């Protein structure tokens, strides 16, 4: 399932609880614009609304880049703080989500860099599991998380952002600071690598 920006904004508008049923995307955008302007004028309630609307997707962006759920939480909080401090410089006519997720991606990349400097140890054998059991078997998740360690960090981020979160190649490129074509090629290589690794694992059994 692919979640596009439009859907995200529809969700946003629903969360804002507009009075007359399901709003159009443009209604959602104008509501979000109003929230941004109010937040820029100092309304913390408006900023809280923006947090409420965007935190799940912000978490997903961060989770795709960092290794653990805890780091994703830290990156989300840092990202929102950066966004709050930079809010005056944001032009309300621009899409807020794209701006925010770029900040989230930067906060996550900073965290990854800091972690690398701090623990110069080798990468763990497996990508740490999310803290919540989503209902799939532990064995499957273990194998998949092991396969993910064979990808480069960027490939892993790209495939998660694309296949799990539904971001487009262009959006991913914008977030990670790489050209769209590179995001496309990373995705292709990541998929091929995962297919190969998982196939090898199966044949070993």
């Amino acid at each position: 399932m692919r979640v596009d920006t439009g859907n995200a904004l529809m969700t946003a508008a629903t969360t804002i609880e507009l009075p007359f049923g399901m709003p159009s995307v443009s209604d959602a955008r104008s509501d979000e614009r109003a929230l941004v302007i109010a937040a820029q004028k100092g309304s913390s309630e408006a900023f809280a609304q923006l947090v409420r609307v965007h935190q799940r997707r912000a978490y997903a962006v961060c989770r795709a880049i960092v290794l653990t759920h805890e780091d994703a939480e830290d990156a989300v909080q840092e990202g929102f703080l950066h966004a709050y401090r930079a809010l005056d410089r944001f032009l309300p006519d621009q899409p807020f989500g794209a701006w925010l997720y770029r900040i989230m991606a930067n906060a996550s990349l900073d965290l990854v860099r800091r972690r690398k400097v701090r623990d110069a140890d080798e990468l763990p054998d497996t990508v740490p599991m999310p803290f919540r059991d989503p209902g799939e078997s532990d064995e499957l998740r273990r194998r998949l998380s092991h396969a993910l360690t064979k990808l480069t960090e960027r490939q892993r981020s790209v495939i998660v952002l694309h296949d799990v979160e539904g971001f487009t190649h262009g959006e991913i490129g914008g977030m990670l600071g790489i050209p769209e074509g590179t995001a496309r090629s990373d995705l292709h290589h990541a998929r091929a690598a995962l297919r190969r690794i998982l196939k090898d694992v199966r044949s070993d059994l």
Partner: protein
Amino acid sequence: MTDFRLISNDDDEVARGLRSLYAAPAGDGYWNELEARIMARVADVELGWWTELDRWVRPALAAAAVLLMAAGVAMFRAHEVEGDIAAENMLSSPAVPVSTAIRPALQDDREARIRFLFGR
């Protein structure tokens, strides 16, 4: 093994596995708590003394610049007035014609003033 039926060469199935692995917390309680933590940190930023300082930096700089300009203008004007008064005092006729008393040979008051000025 049953688990691996979910992962095949098909990209969609890999994506399904990834979604399962990267699933975000689902409970509203978790998100409410995260939002509260974020807003608490935002409130800390708002209350920080540096923010207050930052808020006052521009007005303070503007006020300082205005004060500096006013002081400069006032000093200039004061200096100008002082000069005018000094010149006026020098050019106005003295109450007691001291120079005439000392040097009676001087031709007129004007000459006496000039001599007085250059003689100081």
